[in-house]
């Protein structure tokens, strides 16, 4: 660790902080909570306490801003610089600034807190099912008032739990209207506006009037970002317009075409060529909690560490279950000493009614409801330990649970309890199957399970089995030596993958549709074209190669590359 020259530190232990403004990316209570948890990281290991002020001057003044935001160190648009903070002292010293050209989340995509509805302010659950279709963003489908909404459980059709998503039609932030919603159209400097605008401002924040005439009433507020809104570019806050035309070609999803940095972008009107309105597509974003904890380290007197795993390392990386590194603890305790009184405890999230993606969601008190099933333990034979396998014959979802098949055995990850169960002997559950299963899928309509091995396939309905039959019966060519992956596409259609090609199977007709095969890379750009497992899980497409997976969202953007072992199997 390193401290600033002269060991700059606060001369008191009761530190105050004040949040001067909010990012439109997250609901204010989520931002308050992220900052509170970030302070708790440091108070847990020192004698420091942090008290929030709502007016006046606090030791640590926290604000969001873009580019030139009032100090000598401008931000640089999306990515690059995320935030900065000053070492302890008077005035600007001790303050923390966050770049609002970033997409602020809790590190795993938009965190959308709902209002109204019947879910008591719960977070949206993405994806959620509505009328049989999976949604990964808020939607206005099913409504005539254009208010975006989401399901707050996995299945709206079953649970009927929902809430409304942030939008300017629901409320505004800051300004002088006590959060009232926008009124459209409104008049500003004699001109009529039908949507939020950045006109009249130099800080690029979107605003609206909360009466029909700003010139007369002077009532306004800032518009919250919709989860579908682009960031940066020149159309911040607007949703992508699909399809859009760019250099004469039509695009149905975000693209990195035209950019050297590979960032995904979209146009916000039908034609980029004509209107040149664009922005970056919503992504995983940066964890406000993690960045704030780092910046508050500066505000307390810590400089950058050169230990990669330390919080005070200068680069951002997302960690799921954060805990303060020994180097950070030594650094802050060098300045302020250790915690006196009760033993230090791991920081816990402040009580809320919802779980956040960067907190531990595991409920240790919950026990699996299937006590007869063996769970993996360290004493298991290494050849039967899923965590010691680098590759699986196939991975698929059966009855909502991820199943991992390898050499006559399988494991399943309970989606309910997030616990890995197994190994089970494949032939005990599905007696007709051979030891090696190349691919499998469950037909969403009939719940029949299709298994492929080599050039044969079997169909299971409960315990009844049909097969083996030749894959040629489905219309696959005899050149197909094995089917390596399957993706359900809507009701009754499944994409089957083999080599660099895929085919669309009409499950009801048991025939391959016309127009196939197609090349994988013509439709699924950015994933390995030699994936040995392809499957659909929680609305995302997964392409596996060796121990890695490429995850693709329904817009066919690769939004994550990770380890099967750690992310899907949740191995230690």
């Amino acid at each position, binding site marked *: 660790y390193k401290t*600033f*020259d002269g060991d700059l530190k606060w001369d008191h232990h009761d530190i105050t902080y004040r949040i001067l403004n909010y990012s439109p990316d997250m609901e204010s209570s989520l931002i308050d909570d992220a900052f509170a948890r970030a302070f708790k990281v440091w108070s847990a290991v020192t004698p420091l306490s942090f008290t929030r002020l709502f007016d006046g001057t606090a030791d640590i003044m926290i604000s969001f801003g873009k*580019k030139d935001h009032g100090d000598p*160190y401008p*931000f*640089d*648009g*999306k*990515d*690059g*610089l*995320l*935030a*900065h*903070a000053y070492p302890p002292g008077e005035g600007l010293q001790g303050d923390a600034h966050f*770049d609002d050209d970033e997409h602020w989340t809790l590190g795993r995509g938009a965190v959308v807190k709902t209002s109204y509805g019947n879910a008591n302010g719960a977070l949206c659950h993405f994806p959620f099912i509505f009328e049989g279709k999976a949604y990964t963003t808020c939607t206005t489908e099913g409504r005539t008032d254009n208010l975006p909404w989401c399901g707050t459980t996995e299945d709206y059709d079953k649970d009927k739990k929902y809430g409304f998503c942030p939008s300017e039609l629901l409320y505004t932030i800051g300004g002088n209207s006590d959060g009232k919603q926008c009124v459209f159209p409104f008049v500003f400097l004699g001109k009529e506006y039908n949507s939020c605008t950045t006109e009249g401002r130099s800080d690029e924040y979107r605003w609206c009037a909360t009466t029909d005439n700003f010139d007369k009433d002077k009532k306004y507020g800032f518009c919250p970002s919709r989860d579908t809104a682009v960031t*940066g*570019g*020149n159309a911040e806050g607007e949703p992508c317009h699909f399809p859009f035309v760019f*250099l004469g070609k039509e695009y149905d999803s975000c*693209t*990195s*075409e*035209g*950019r*050297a*940095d590979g960032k995904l*972008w979209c146009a916000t009107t039908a034609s980029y060529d004509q209107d*040149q309105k*664009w922005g970056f597509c919503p992504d995983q974003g*940066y964890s406000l909690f993690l*960045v704030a904890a*780092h*910046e508050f380290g*500066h505000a307390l007197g810590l*400089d*950058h560490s*050169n*230990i*990669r795993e330390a919080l005070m390392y*200068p*680069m*951002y990386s997302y960690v799921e279950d954060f805990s303060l590194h020994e180097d950070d603890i030594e650094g802050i305790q060098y300045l302020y000493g250790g915690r006196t009184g009760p033993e230090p405890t791991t920081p816990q999230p402040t009580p809320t009614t919802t779980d956040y993606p960067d907190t531990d969601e595991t409920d240790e008190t919950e026990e699996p409801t299937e006590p007869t099933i063996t769970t993996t333990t360290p004493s298991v034979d290494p050849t039967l330990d899923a965590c010691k396998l680098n590759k699986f014959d196939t991975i698929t979802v059966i009855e909502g649970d991820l199943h991992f098949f390898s050499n006559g055995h399988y494991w399943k990850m309970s989606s309910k309890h997030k616990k890995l169960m197994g190994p089970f002997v494949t032939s005990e559950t599905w007696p007709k199957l051979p030891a090696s299963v190349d691919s499998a899928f469950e037909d969403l309509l009939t719940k029949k399970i299709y298994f492929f091995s080599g050039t044969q396939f079997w169909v299971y309905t409960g315990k009844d089995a049909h097969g083996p039959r030749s894959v040629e019966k489905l219309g696959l060519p005899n050149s197909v030596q094995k089917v390596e992956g399957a993706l359900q596409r809507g009701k009754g259609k499944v994409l089957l993958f083999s080599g660099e090609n895929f085919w669309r199977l009409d499950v009801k007709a048991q025939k391959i549709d016309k127009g196939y095969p197609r090349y*994988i*890379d013509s439709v*699924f*750009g*950015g*994933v*390995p*074209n030699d994936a040995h497992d392809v499957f659909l899980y929680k609305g995302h497409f997964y392409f596996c*190669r060796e121990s890695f997976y*490429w995850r693709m969202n329904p817009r066919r953007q690769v939004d994550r590359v990770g380890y099967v072992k750690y992310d899907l199997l949740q191995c230690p």
Partner: protein
Amino acid sequence: WTIPLKSVFVTFPGDIVKNVTDMELAENYLQRFGYMESVKRSGFQPVVSASKALKRMQRQMGLEETGELDPATLDAMKRPRCGVPDVAN
């Protein structure tokens, strides 16, 4: 894996991240985060100081200290980070 088909790059209006060369990016980075400044102060010639600045940066980031703008160093320079300089100014 599959490579997106393309390669016409355009200048997007309002995009403050311009297409810069690797050398320009590296020089900006070393200056912005204090590596160049402190080395220049100690009186080295620019050529030497660039290499030394790179080594300092590589040490700070836990990279191999080659003193050259190798792919790992360039990759580190492109990653999102805190705006506080690594070397006190």
